[in-house]
């Protein structure tokens, strides 16, 4: 083991000397990518095997990642990496298949809903074809089913069902010995994702009860209410998992707190599409987090990120302060910024921005 580490360290050092890159694998990638995109080393390539429609606006993408991919636990997500019109985009999606499928057949699925105006989700729906290769990161996240077997309640809304599909299937395969209930909120019956899968699970496992609640079938929306929770036997003893739009998550959290559900019993994963960005001076500004320096500041007026970093006592690299020299370019890990020169609004994910001409629009996190 030690020999292996020293060997790879030496190799890494040598690779850096020869290719001038922190990631020596990047040297051959441009050539291997052209020959066979599945040979790329910088990230895990995955071939699209099959695409199936779940609902009118949701599709399941079956992928075969390169063998070296590290696998995942039910409830985790990963980042996909694709190039749209020359721009690399990364976005996070939950794995909707069970880890068993990966272990037995080397396949995983992502179930993705088309977001109105969403650049990446629409591209995935319209342009990604079977046979194409996309990039993946390793899986991450701690929205995991209980190690110690306890009764479970899942509360899902819309496409928030995706990690829960993976969890339910995994629990079924392991013959989970405790009762499991799913409250699934959808707008109309046509919006149920994983309909057959859920029905089959409910038919086969008497301990699993499924309650699909449609919210928009009558003139007044019917959201989660006390009655829904009253109907769950032994609620206080359950581990509770929440995944869905922010409104549902807030409502459920509040109602559960009122019933003295302990915070340790409650598991949630944030799942909300970013609000469509608008260019207007009124929605400029927001809290900026410099994650590498562990600092957080509130922006004043239309101050740019460079000014804010400096006001916070940081000394990021910079030069011209007018958007020419790119010395101030750094990685924004989350949030959106407006480019002062072009008025263009960035995407919400990770990308490089020029500090001196970027103005925060809502909370922003930077890798400095």
């Amino acid at each position, binding site marked *: 083991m030690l020999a292996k580490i020293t060997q790879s360290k030496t190799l890494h050092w040598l690779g850096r000397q020869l290719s001038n890159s922190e990631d020596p694998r990047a040297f051959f990638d441009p050539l291997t990518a052209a020959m066979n995109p599945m040979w790329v080393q910088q990230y895990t390539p995955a071939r699209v095997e099959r695409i199936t429609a779940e609902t009118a606006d949701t599709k399941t993408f079956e992928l075969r990642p390169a063998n070296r991919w590290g696998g995942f636990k039910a409830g985790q997500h990963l980042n996909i990496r694709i190039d749209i019109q*020359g721009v690399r985009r990364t976005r996070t999606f939950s794995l909707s298949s069970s880890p068993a499928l990966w272990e037995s057949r080397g396949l995983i699925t992502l179930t993705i809903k088309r977001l109105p105006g969403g650049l990446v989700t629409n591209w995935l729906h319209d342009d990604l074809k079977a046979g194409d290769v996309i990039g993946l990161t390793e899986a991450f996240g701690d929205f995991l089913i209980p190690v110690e077997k306890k009764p479970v309640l899942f509360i899902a809304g819309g496409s928030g069902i995706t990690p829960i599909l993976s969890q339910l299937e995994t629990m079924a395969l392991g013959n989970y010995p405790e009762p499991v209930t799913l409250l699934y909120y959808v707008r109309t019956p046509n919006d149920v994702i994983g309909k057959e899968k859920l029905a089959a699970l409910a038919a086969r496992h008497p301990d699993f009860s499924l309650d699909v609640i449609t919210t928009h079938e009558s003139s007044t929306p019917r959201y989660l209410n006390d009655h829904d929770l009253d109907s769950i036997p032994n609620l206080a003893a359950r581990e509770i998992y929440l995944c869905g739009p922010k409104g549902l998550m807030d409502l459920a959290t509040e109602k559960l707190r009122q019933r003295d559900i302990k915070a340790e019993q409650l598991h949630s994963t944030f799942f909300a599409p970013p609000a469509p960005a608008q260019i207007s001076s009124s929605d400029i500004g927001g809290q900026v987090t410099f994650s590498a320096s562990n600092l957080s500041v509130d922006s004043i007026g239309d101050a740019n990120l460079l000014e804010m970093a400096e006001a916070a006592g940081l000394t990021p690299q910079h*030069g011209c302060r007018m958007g020419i*020299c790119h010395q101030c370019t750094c990685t924004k890990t989350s949030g959106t910024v407006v480019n002062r020169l072009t008025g263009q609004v960035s995407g919400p994910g*990770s990308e490089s921005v020029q500090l001196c001409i970027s103005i925060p629009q809502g909370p922003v996190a930077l890798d400095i």
Partner: protein
Amino acid sequence: MNTLNEQQLNELQKDLDTIRDEVLADLGERDANHIRSMVRLHRKLEIGGRVLMPFGFIPPVFLAATASLGLAKILENMEIGHNVMHGQYDWMNDPSLNSQTYEWDTACSSESWRRTHNFEHHTYTNVIGKDRDYGYAVLRLSNDEPWRPRHTFQILNYAALSILFQWGVALHELEAEKLSHGKSHLKEKRPFLKLAAKKAGRQAFKDYVFFPVLTLPVAPIVLAGNAVANLIRNLWSSTVIFCGHFTQDAETFTEEQAEGESKGHWYLRQLTGSSNFTGGKWLHIMSGHLSFQIEHHVFPDLPAHRYPEISEKVQKVCQKHGIHYNTGSFGKQYGTVLKRILRHSLPERITRRPAVA
């Protein structure tokens, strides 16, 4: 320097910003494909050169191997490294083409180059005393600098600088001329020297230790081939760069002229301080499109392969404002560079034409 009034300068700025905005709005797959195909070509040339070099005891193979490796280095330094480090492809969000993390195949570290070139040279273009690229502190290229006897044989300095160009650029930030005048101290330069030694060591290790040792029975051939490849790259890049700002009609500026200037004024200085040369597609690629130095200086962060197509628009803007667009064949432009070096070897009282009586 042309004199434009404030209103004209504002108009000039608007005209050039329009060109810039059009390109920015159109960035996409075409640009990504261009830089990626250049990277692929670089990999093929470098791998080809490295693989052939040990067989260099066959003379034609030696020629092919050194040419391949030399071209690889030129392509990587000029069209890929230089342009990527200007941030021309940052919008692609690809970590291997990011201006802040890219490290190129030459002795100068990217970090030092970003300070001396990207910031100093591009902000203070041709401002005597502030732009240290102007003559690289070893050449006197304008009357603004007083003549000294040591300038007499500066053509030899120029030759030496060209041959060792990558090392000259690597040590640029040391500001040796200030050190020798006691205006700065070696102590302040320690962090830079550490960085420079690391990068230079890496370059020397690769070309002069690792690959020769790897091919031990033919080590001298590999060593020689690598040295020649580096020489080819040095001569070419130095020549291209000298043609960019030191031609006959490229103007120089005083610090006062550049003080507190507006964006329009800055644009005007870039336009008149730079010079182009004409040629075919591959001449442009191999010079990293610095053959379009004027466009590069006006828009340093637009993808360089766009310069040929925006050049016509830039020329029209120059015409409109009565600004000289300095261009000519490669040979002609280089000729004026040599003339400039020679002319400023001697004091003005000798080179000035005698007044007509």
